[in-house]
């Protein structure tokens, strides 16, 4: 008979995985639609993509990857009952999220200033649709990180509480994973 450690354990609450699979599948349908419409107007999509700053996309990717690192370190610190380190690491992750939001707002501003909006063409319809939907998830995730920073200030070994904390961390990593694909599709596909 195999031990429990050999069989593995599901991180967080089981329900969070249904949410994550569902969210990522809905986004994947949008990614497929983006490439479908791109195939019908390659030159238009390429010209529109050239309006974006790859540097902004790259910097925002670095912010989210770094926030994911901080959150992974924070969850581990929570397991180890480090009630000083864990909240600080969640706040560090939250700071990266805030940097992402500010830079995304700046990018929107620069596009609006040039008269580019959601109705400009199909590419920018997808650009604003995908990034705004994702930004909504970043905002929700930021609230989750703030709640985790507060919750982990007091030590607790209650498994249910820890599962909730781990679920919050997994939600944040999903936000990061979705952005990785959005960045590739909107900024890098040739």
């Amino acid at each position, binding site marked *: 008979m195999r031990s429990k450690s050999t069989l593995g*354990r599901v991180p967080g609450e089981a329900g969070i995985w249904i949410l994550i699979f569902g969210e990522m599948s809905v986004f994947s349908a949008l990614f497929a639609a983006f490439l*479908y419409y791109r195939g019908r107007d390659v030159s238009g999509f390429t010209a529109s993509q050239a309006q974006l700053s790859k540097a902004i996309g790259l910097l925002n990717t670095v912010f989210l*990857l770094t926030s994911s690192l901080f959150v*992974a370190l924070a969850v581990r610190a929570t397991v180890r009952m480090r009630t000083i380190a864990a909240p600080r690491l969640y706040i560090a992750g939250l700071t990266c999220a805030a940097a992402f939001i500010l830079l995304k707002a700046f990018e929107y501003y620069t596009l609006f200033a040039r008269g580019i909006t959601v109705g400009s063409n199909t590419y920018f319809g997808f650009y604003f649709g995908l990034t705004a939907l994702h930004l909504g998830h970043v905002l929700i995730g930021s609230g989750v990180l703030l709640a985790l920073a507060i919750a982990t200030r007091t030590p607790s070994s209650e498994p249910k509480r820890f599962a909730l904390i781990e679920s919050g961390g997994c939600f944040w990593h999903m936000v*990061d994973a979705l952005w990785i694909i959005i*960045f590739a599709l909107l900024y*890098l596909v*040739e």
Partner: protein
Amino acid sequence: MRGFLRDRLVLVWLVLIGATLFSTGIGGTTGLARSGDGAAVTAAVLAIAFGKVAAVIFNYMDIRRAPGALKILWGAWLAVVLTVLMGIYRTGL
């Protein structure tokens, strides 16, 4: 510092950042491989992106320690979505 750099979570982050810099360098309208084959660049960019997502799911979400069924499910999901996206891009469906 050396201990920090030996931390698996930090090593994964370094790989993710390196992969991001590489794909940003080759991809897009100002990519280093602009004069090359756009289809090959896109295939590389998408494959790297899904490799990064796999790294996040398995290491940061800790699926690497999850039951085998969940690992297979995620691996299959990533492979199917990547294949579908590549297929749409290449065939212009």
